[in-house]
């Protein structure tokens, strides 16, 4: 079984903690509201375990996937909302630009752009802290059951799904979202080693 040592886990957690802080700032700018973040929970999980994540299993969700490749390896980052919250988020983002009754026609595009901005900010910070260059692809939007969207798209046999699972909450609102990263285990391990080297 793949595993991370305590120092490797800690270095990655801190990396994502810092990266997410910057991303939360951007998201709060976009929707003019405060974003509350949980401390990143870093887990290496199998596909089977990922299927049973609390609050997501059997839920309708929207995800924006940002594929990336570079020194860090090849992987995917996901921003994920419950479907029920997505229109409210778009309303908050678009309220100064279009009439409220027109917001729904921009839902897919607006969520894709939120994902693009948030996930690129995190990946840019990751690149900066690790001294790796990362190339990002154009984000892709999906809507449907969590299991279908996330898990069937990554059927790799080594089961090194991981990883960082952060949930965020809008202040005073019942809106939650999640950020996932999927990288193969060697890339995860390598990233943590680079960070540890830099700290020495």
């Amino acid at each position, binding site marked *: 079984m793949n595993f991370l040592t305590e120092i490797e886990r800690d270095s990655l957690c801190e990396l994502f903690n810092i990266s997410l802080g910057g991303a939360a700032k*951007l998201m709060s*700018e*976009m929707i003019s509201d405060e974003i509350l973040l949980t401390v990143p929970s870093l887990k290496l999980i199998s596909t089977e375990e990922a299927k049973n994540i609390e609050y997501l299993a059997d839920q309708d969700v929207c995800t924006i996937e940002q594929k990336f490749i570079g020194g860090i390896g090849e992987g995917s980052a996901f921003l994920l909302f419950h479907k029920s919250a997505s229109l409210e988020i778009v309303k908050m*983002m*678009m309220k100064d*630009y*279009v009439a409220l009754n027109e917001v729904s026609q*921009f839902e897919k*595009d*607006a969520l*894709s*752009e939120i994902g*693009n*901005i948030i996930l*690129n*900010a995190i*990946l*840019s910070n990751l*690149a*900066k802290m690790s001294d790796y*260059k*990362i190339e*990002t*692809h*154009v984000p892709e939007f999906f809507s449907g059951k969590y299991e279908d969207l996330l898990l069937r798209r990554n059927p790799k046999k080594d089961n090194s799904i991981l990883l960082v699972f952060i949930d965020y909450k809008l202040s005073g609102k019942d809106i939650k979202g999640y950020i996932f990263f999927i990288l193969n285990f060697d890339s995860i391990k390598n990233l943590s080693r680079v960070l540890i080297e830099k700290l020495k």
Partner: protein
Amino acid sequence: MSQKKALIVDDSTVTRLMIRKIILDKYPDWEILEASSADDAKSLLKDHRDFDFFSLDQNMPGTLSGLDLAEDLKNNYKVAKIVLITANIQDAIKNRAKTIGIDFVEKPVTSEKIIPHLD
């Protein structure tokens, strides 16, 4: 303010809409054209030669990036203002924008970020 002509290049409809509104709130008489990729922008430029302002995203579908297009524009539009407005805020991207000699704005777009680059 005399009428100017701007081209907004971004694959996000929402971001094009936002940039368009920010510009028109400040300068209602500007003429604004849009393209959803750098490749489409290049085709559009064949019929429109007289732009004063370009807003370019970096990562878009197609063969060209915003910075690829910026290099081309720099050679053909000597006095136009070119701004890269992107979520890709890596130092490598910022440095290349600087080398080409264009402005750099981090998404998300706001009027405070865009307006200083319009003149």
